[in-house]
């Protein structure tokens, strides 16, 4: 970009984008992905879409249903709603979840910009001003000071900090809040502990809870659908059980082990909750847990109650009301079955939602013990109940750290102890652990694919991640060496599916991706044929 963006540009030139994405301005990838002209083109909006849709941020649209006001009055009405929502966000009664960290983040930023060097999206974009964590946060901070505090408007004018609040401001701010993965790498690097990701998330909440603006993939076809039929995927209880029965049979045949996945077993020790999308898209994941739990003699069960077979809770990304509703349902189901604990499946945000964020609503009877998948799996692997032969996993393996599990919850080592034991060629990527980069699909972005949003995710948000993966395997980069990217989170796997599809990573570099459960099963002595396959079925 030629012109440097100013904060005040957010309210200028209503219909026109502030910036655009050009592939040759992005951080270069290692060969054979280094020539921008050979990469998949960045899909632009069609003239028809440009006319119909609100596209005034960066040439990318994540929410096609963002309403265009028919006249000035309607536009003003939305702006007034925004102000009303902003005031609620700052009040104890309405923001009973995150008010304190939000206020601290708004009040204590020293503008040192250290966070910007930590942000994978800002860096990957070639340091596009629009994607600076502080660009979004500072605009919001000034709006808070102006409309949320007494004397704010006068103060803003005197300080030279005035941001005009109009239709362009709020629509751009809405879309911009969905250009953040909520990965909190910025928070980790901030000397003050300012949480820019939280600010982005609270902006999303304002829009959702006050104006009803939220990506349909997260709300209407997300939490709402999940509470109604069982899963945002539309998977109903009987279909989930039927699909699992099919998988039990298919994999019993393939592995030579009789697999029977238990459902609705009252009084079991463990209620396991998968991310239901795995059942449809990455069935080896959930089936691997059936195999491992049975082989280790665990008294466990799945639940067919709505939504007890789908652990996702998109509310974490955009809306406290939905977050609470889904979390309470999950805990109620565990209580009803009388299990001793609920164990999460391989899904990052599920952990964050049910293990910590929902703490405040899971009181009394609902305060049922919850465990993360890594310590659970580690106990199984090192229990001595299953015989493993690590040589079965003798191919290069690297580990992606899901943000919500690792950086945000501190579950770092158990998965590494498993990998060091079961994978002779395990190597870390750089950086790793809590410093690892987000896959680019975090914060709910991985299930959002309206208009050309997938192009942005694959080319920009996921760019540094792809670079990391390739560098981790730089010693054997060619497609003839079969390599495995361990990505123990469904959201991340979906993002990798998009990135790998865009760049043809499997064909050009011989890399496939999957969870940790599959690696454990692949190393089991009792499995006669390899569980992990590089060839297609």
């Amino acid at each position, binding site marked *: 970009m030629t012109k440097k963006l100013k904060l005040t540009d957010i309210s200028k030139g209503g219909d026109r984008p502030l910036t655009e994405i050009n592939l040759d301005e992005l951080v270069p990838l290692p060969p054979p992905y280094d020539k921008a002209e050979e990469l998949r083109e960045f899909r632009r909006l069609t003239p*028809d*879409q440009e006319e*119909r*849709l609100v596209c005034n941020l960066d040439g990318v*649209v994540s929410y*096609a249903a963002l309403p265009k006001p028919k006249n000035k009055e309607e536009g003003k009405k939305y702006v007034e709603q925004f102000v009303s929502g902003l005031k609620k966000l700052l009040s104890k009664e309405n923001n009973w979840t995150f008010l304190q960290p939000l206020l601290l983040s708004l009040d204590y930023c020293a503008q040192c910009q250290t966070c910007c060097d930590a942000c994978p999206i800002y860096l990957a974009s070639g340091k596009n001003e629009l994607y600076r964590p502080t660009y979004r946060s500072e605009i919001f901070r000034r709006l808070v000071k102006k409309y949320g505090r007494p004397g704010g408007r006068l103060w803003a004018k005197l300080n030279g900090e005035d941001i005009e609040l109009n239709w362009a401001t709020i629509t751009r701010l809405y879309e911009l809040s969905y250009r953040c993965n909520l990965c909190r790498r910025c928070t980790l690097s901030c000397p003050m502990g300012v949480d820019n990701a939280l600010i982005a998330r609270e902006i999303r909440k304002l829009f959702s809870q006050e104006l009803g603006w939220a990506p*349909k*993939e997260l709300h209407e*076809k*997300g939490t709402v*659908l*999940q509470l109604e*039929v069982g*899963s*945002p*995927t*539309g*998977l*109903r209880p009987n*279909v989930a059980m039927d*699909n699992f029965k*099919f*998988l039990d049979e*298919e994999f019993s045949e393939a592995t030579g082990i009789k697999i029977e996945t238990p459902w609705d077993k009252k009084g079991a020790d463990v209620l396991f909750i998968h*991310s*239901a*999308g*795995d*059942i*449809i*898209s990455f*069935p080896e994941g959930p089936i691997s847990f059936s195999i491992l739990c049975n082989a280790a003699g665990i008294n466990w069960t799945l639940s067919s109650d709505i939504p007890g077979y789908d652990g*996702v809770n998109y509310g974490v990304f955009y809306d406290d009301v939905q977050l609470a509703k889904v979390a309470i349902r999950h805990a109620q189901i565990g209580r009803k079955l009388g299990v001793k604990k609920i164990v999460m499946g391989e*899904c990052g945000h599920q952990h964050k939602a049910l293990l910590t964020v929902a703490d405040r609503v899971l009181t009394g009877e609902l305060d049922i013990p919850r465990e993360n998948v890594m310590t659970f799996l580690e106990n199984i692997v090192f229990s001595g109940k299953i015989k493993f032969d690590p040589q079965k996993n003798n191919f290069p393996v690297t580990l992606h750290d899901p943000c919500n599990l690792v950086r945000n919850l501190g579950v770092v080592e158990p998965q590494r102890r498993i990998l060091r034991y079961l994978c002779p060629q395990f190597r870390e990527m750089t950086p790793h652990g809590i410093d690892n980069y987000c896959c680019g699909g975090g914060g709910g972005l*991985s*299930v959002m*694919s*309206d*208009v050309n949003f997938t192009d942005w995710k694959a080319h920009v948000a996921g760019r540094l991640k792809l670079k990391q993966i390739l560098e981790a395997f730089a010693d054997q980069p060619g497609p003839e060496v079969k390599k495995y990217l361990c990505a123990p989170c*469904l*959201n991340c796997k*979906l993002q990798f599916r998009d990135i790998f599809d865009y760049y043809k990573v499997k064909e050009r570099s011989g890399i496939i991706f999957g969870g940790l459960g599959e690696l454990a099963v692949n190393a089991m002595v009792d499995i006669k044929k390899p569980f992990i396959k590089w060839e*297609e*079925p």
Partner: protein
Amino acid sequence: MAQMELAGNMYEVDENGFMQETDRWTEDVARAYAAKEGVNEVTEDHWKAVNYLRNYYLQNGICPMIRRLIKETGFNLSRLYELFPQGPAQSACKWAGVPKPTGCV
């Protein structure tokens, strides 16, 4: 909501071209989608996959997993990509007039 002309009629589609009014689907709609992707002859093999997909969706409210599609039709993944240029998830679902899958799938 976007509009697309298929086989001489206007249909409501999402921004990726997937039909929103599933019950207005006809075989001609499938042929129109196929033609847009450069497939000018929709064969028996195509119909086998499209019909299985559509019927499964209408019965279960979700598209079948790829393993089921492969087992029911007898086509492996390479064959499916030969038949449907964008693959089973993108092309076949579209031609079958079912909405784009939502959630983590």
